[in-house]
């Protein structure tokens, strides 16, 4: 006989009131609760930095859909992070115009400067490096996006200067905005239920 441990979350204790009200607003403009899924994931991610399993389960519960279905949606999209990311996520465009204009040099400079490869986060928790498909800045290539900011006409030097600027703006506090949200996560009232599996 095998014991399977499952975790039951109550979304009302996991998600903040602000998150819930923002998600419920999205629900009101759609016909079904499930159709707010991607917006809900983006809302929680904007507050917590990424989508943990607990976040995913809580959102699924709030929207009355299965976690598996929401996971299918979450993993379908490039901009939903299902792993912890740094405070700044660098999305460097690797599509055709940036390719023809030598984004590779910029990418190489960023990788060397930060000491990370695609998909990795710096040890200080500040930067995560990801590729992005065409950012729509083809006439200003090469380009990258960090947060909501698009950076254009990149050179290796300019990219490194941008990263240094962001780094200095944090005063070494890598968790920054997400500090209070980590505490939210720690207060989860998780109930462990043992299910007997015959």
């Amino acid at each position, binding site marked *: 006989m095998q014991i399977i441990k499952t975790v039951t979350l109550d979304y009302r204790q996991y998600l903040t009131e602000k998150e819930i009200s923002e998600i419920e607003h999205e629900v009101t*403009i*759609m*016909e*079904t609760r*499930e*159709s*707010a*899924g*991607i*917006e809900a*994931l*983006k809302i929680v991610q904007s507050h917590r930095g990424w989508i943990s399993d607990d976040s995913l389960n809580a959102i699924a519960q709030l*929207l009355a*859909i299965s976690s598996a279905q929401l996971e*299918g*949606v979450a993993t*379908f*999209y*490039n*901009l*939903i992070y299902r792993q912890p990311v740094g405070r700044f996520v660098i*999305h460097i465009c*690797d*599509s*055709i*115009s940036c*390719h*023809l*204009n*030598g*984004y*590779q*040099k910029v*990418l*190489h400079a960023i990788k060397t400067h930060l000491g990370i490869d695609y998909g990795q986060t710096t040890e200080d928790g500040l930067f995560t490096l990801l590729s*992005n*498909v*065409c*950012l*729509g*800045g*083809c*006439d*200003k*290539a090469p380009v990258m*996006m960090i947060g*909501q900011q*698009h950076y254009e006409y990149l050179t290796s030097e300019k990219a490194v200067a941008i990263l240094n600027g962001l780094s200095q703006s944090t005063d070494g506090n890598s968790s920054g905005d997400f500090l209070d949200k980590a505490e939210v996560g720690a207060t989860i009232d998780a109930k462990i239920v043992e299910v007997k599996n015959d």
Partner: protein
Amino acid sequence: MTNSTSQSSMLQPLTHLVNLSQPLSLKEYIREGGYQGAKKALRELQPAEVLAIISDSNLKGRGGAGFPTGMKWSCVPMFEADDVNAPEHKYLVCNADEMEPGTFKDRMLMEGVPHQLVEAMIISAYTIGADKAYIFLRGEYHLSAKRLQQAIDEAYSENWLGKNIQGTNYQLDLYVHTSAGRYICGEETALINALEGKRAIPRAKPPFPQVSGLFGKPTVVNNVETFCNIPHIIKNGADWFKQLSPKSDAGTKIYAACGRVKTPGLWELPMGVTIRELLYGHAGGMADGLKLKGLLPGGASTDFLLPEHLDTPMDFDSIAKAGSRLGTGGLIVLDDQNCPVGMVLNLIRFFAQESCGWCTPCRDGTPWAVEILTRIENGQGQARDLDDLANLCDFMWLGKTHCALAPGAVEPLKSALKYFHDDFEQHIDKGCCPYSGSHSPSEIASNVAQACGGHAHG
């Protein structure tokens, strides 16, 4: 493009009010002649009359496929107000999921003159009898989202949206939905699935969205640029629109050029200017020291054309006759010092990454092509690789896949195999990339590309 003389308003209707640093407020937009099309449609015209004007204007979709807009709209079932068979809602959706590599025109329209799109959607929704409308915006366009939402809020406050618009009995709600980054959402039925909160996998057609689309209700999906033509056609008439283009196609087109040209950018020009005029007249020609090797005329999913095609007019029919597609009208220019194999590899890698994975030819075919192309670019290609690539082009062609993504990926690949055959063979024969010299950016990325010793190309 902020010049707002009356002449430019007639010759460049879509872009003459574009102001990228500070778009016009509702009041300013109205002062410049905005919302006149919407006023005329809602107050003076029946939906069927608006449809007749749009059909007569010969407007074709600007999102890439070039389908006649009037014909698309005419498939939406219309009902009398008291018809018990009428659906509870009909929907209008703006496809603002602009992710085609080398395409950036919709971004300018949304960031630069958001009220134009809002006005266009009011007229279009009125025409098909929709009471709810969504702008499906790609997640990376943060500024567009902000400015569109501001425009929508203003439109609500001045009764251009909501109940009893401008004293008529027509009502419309308009929302911005921001996506989270996936190219396939640009396919209209995948977009509808995405809006419903599902994985964005294209649906089988029929039923077509006009009959059964969003939430199973009649739905029309059009591209941003297509919509933006609507207010001007209603305001100035179908004949005015047709005479904007000297060719058989009507209206203007927002053309683009990117790659290593002197002045990459966007220009609204009469539909049907030649590639030469666009590349040399507007984009300033090739950057110093570079020669034109080839180009994609309308985004990543179109066939290569060569310098010999420079005098081809950039309209749907002429580009098709030359063996490619007008697509989104954005030139992606290949110079003689960038490797064509490397370029195709970059394009196919994009399609492989963005394949939704639903059908086998696309899910497995695109990564297979990436694998072979990587091998060739690395100098480890074999002669039979070219046959395999040609076969893959066949396996992924129209009719063998669930949607148009894989056939779109085939277009640059197949045409590159035809036009740049020598380059592919050189890679294989020499066991290296002949372009991996000092000029080639691919050199850096390439722990990959095995440079031909001392054979810097060009």
